[in-house]
C-alpha cells in the first residue's frame, strides 16, 4: 500500500508524479502548476555561458507541493471497510493522515467523502450505512485537524459499486469511502 514517506519525494519523482497527475486526473488546466511563478523555467540563460557555469549546466525545477489541487497520485483515494462495520482499519489511518496533512497545508482545499456499501440490503438503508462510513472518515480527519468547512460527508449507498460481482471479493471492494477533491 501507500507509504507516507513517499509524500516527501525526491525532486525527480515529484516531477514524474506531477506529470501523472496532469495526465490522469481532473486538475483543471488553469490550475495546473506549469504556470507556477515559484518554479523557474527550464532553459539555458544565454548570459550564463561566460560566467563559469559552462553550457552543459541544468538548473533544477521544483514543483511546490502546496500548489497541487489534489494530493499526489501516490496517495490512495479509497479506504475500505469490513462487513457491517464503520471502523477505520489501521491500514487506512496512514492514508487519511496523508490527506489530512495535504488539506491542512491549503485552507481552500475541499474534499468530499463519498460513502459506499455492498449491494446487500435496501437502497435507502444502505444510503444511511454509506453515510455512517463517510461520517467515520470525516471524524477521523477532524481529529487530525482538518476543518469542517473543508469536508463534506455524503453517501452513494449501493448505487455506485466499484465491482459488480455478487461475491465477497466484489463486496469488499464496494464497502468503501472515496475521497474526491473539488
Amino acid at each position, binding site marked *: 500500500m501507500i507509504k507516507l514517506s513517499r509524500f516527501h519525494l525526491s525532486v525527480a519523482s515529484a516531477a514524474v508524479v506531477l506529470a501523472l497527475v496532469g495526465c490522469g486526473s481532473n486538475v483543471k488546466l488553469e490550475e495546473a502548476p506549469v504556470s507556477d511563478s515559484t518554479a523557474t523555467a527550464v532553459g539555458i540563460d544565454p548570459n550564463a555561458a561566460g560566467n563559469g557555469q559552462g553550457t552543459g549546466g541544468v538548473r533544477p525545477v521544483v514543483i511546490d507541493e502546496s500548489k497541487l489541487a489534489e494530493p499526489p497520485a501516490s496517495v490512495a483515494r479509497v479506504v475500505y471497510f469490513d462487513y457491517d462495520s464503520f471502523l477505520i482499519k489501521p491500514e487506512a489511518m496512514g492514508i487519511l493522515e496523508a490527506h489530512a496533512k495535504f488539506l491542512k497545508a491549503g485552507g481552500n482545499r475541499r474534499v468530499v467523502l*463519498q460513502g459506499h456499501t455492498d449491494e446487500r440490503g*435496501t437502497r435507502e438503508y444502505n444510503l444511511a450505512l454509506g453515510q455512517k462510513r463517510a461520517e467515520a472518515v470525516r471524524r477521523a480527519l477532524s481529529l487530525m485537524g482538518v476543518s469542517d468547512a473543508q469536508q463534506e460527508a455524503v453517501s452513494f449507498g449501493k448505487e455506485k459499486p466499484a465491482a459488480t460481482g455478487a461475491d465477497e471479493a466484489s463486496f469488499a471492494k464496494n464497502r468503501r469511502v472515496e475521497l474526491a477533491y473539488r
Partner: protein
Amino acid sequence: MTVRLNRRHLLGAAAAAPLAPAWGQFRVEVSGVGLTQIPFGVAAFRGGDQASQDLVGIVRGDLERSGQFRAVPPVTQVSLDETSRPDLALWREKSADVLLTGSVTRLADGRFDVRFRVWDVVRGQDLGGLSLPVRQADLRSAGHRMADYIYEKLTGEKGIFSTRIAYVTQGGGKHTLWVADADGENGQVALNSPEPIISPSWAPTGNQLAYVSFESRKPVIYTHELVTGRRRLVANFKGSNSAPAWAPDGKSMLATLTLDGTSQIYSVDLATGSQNRLTRSGGIDTEPCWSAKLGQVFFVSDRGGAPQIYRMSPQGGNAERVTFQGVYNTSPAVSPDGNTLAYITRVGGGFKLQVMDLRNNAISSITDTVSDESPSFAPNGRLIIYATKQQGRDALMTTTLDGRIKTRLASAQGDIREPDWGPFVA
C-alpha cells in the same frame, strides 16, 4: 380475501375454478385453493376492432390482476353492445356472475366513443354503463375506467385501475424515471439522467413526484411536476438528502438529512425550504412513511443495534418499536386503512416481503422470491407493488395481501426497480 360475498354462486364457482389462464401481455399467477373470486364474462365489443387497443383485454387483465375476479371464456363470438339485450342464461351456464358489453365508435373529430353496459347475470339486472369519448392516445384509460366501474359495482370499493405507478430503470449508462398505468403499460419517461435516481414518491395530488437524484454527485431531493417537467430542488443540505415522503396535505415532506452527522428524519417545509428535526437518535433513522389514517410516521432505526421498524407522531418525540422478529427489517409501507404494514426482512442471505396485521401483529411472508424491495400499497389497499428478481431477471410484481395472486408487470428494458403506487386521481 375479504371480497364482499354478495354473489350467491360465488363460493361454489370459485372452488371449481382451474388456474386462471393467461391473457394479454402479462401472466397472472394463482396459488392456493378455495379462492373466492367473482367470475365475469366479457363479450366482444361492437366495433372493437377499430380501436388500436384491445379494450376487452385491458378490462380482463385489470380485473384478474386484482385477485378478486376471474374471467370465464366468452359464450359467443358475436359482439354485444351497450344496447343489446344479452341472453344471460347462456352466461349463467358458464358460471359468470357479471357480464360486460359495449361498443367503440369513431367520432367525426377523430376521437373514439367507448360505450359499455354491465349486467348482473345472476339477478338479470342492468348495472348501468357509461359513454367515454376519448382520444386515441387515451383508449387504454377507457379500458381502465370500465374495469374500475365493474370493480366498484361488484365489490363496493373504488378500483385502482386508472391510477399510475412510478419506477426507475437502469440500462446503457442511463437512469430513467418512468410513469406508467397501474398495469405497467403505457410507460412514459419523466426523467433521464446519467446518475442514479432512487426513492420516487408520489405527491398526494398525483401530479408531482419527489425523488432522490445523484446528478450533482451527492444525493439531493427534487420535486418534479409531470405535465410540465418543471423541477424544484427542495432538499440540498450539506451531506446526504434522501427518502422523501410527502405529508398528506402536500405542504411539507419528511426526508432523511445528515446535518448532524448520521441520518436523521426531518420535516422539510416545501414553501420555505426550512427543516425541522424529528428524530434524535445517535444512529440511523430513515425511510419515513406517513400513515394519514393512523396519524403516525413509520420509519427504520438502528437505535436497538439493528434496523427495525418504529412508529412515532408526525411531530417526532417518543418512538414505539413495531417489528421484533428478525434482525433486519426495512422499507415500511402502511396500507391506506392503517391495518397492514408491508416491509422487507432479511432471512438468511435473502430479502423478503412481509405483511404484518397491525391489529394483532400477525406476520406473513407472501413471496417465494429472495430479492424483494420497495413495497408500496395501491390506494385502495388491496394490492402491493414491489420489485424483485424472478429467474435472475429484475421484475415489478403486484400481489394481493395474502400473496395468492401475483402478476409480473410488463417491463421496459434494463434493470427495473423502485416502484411507487400513485394516489387516486379525480
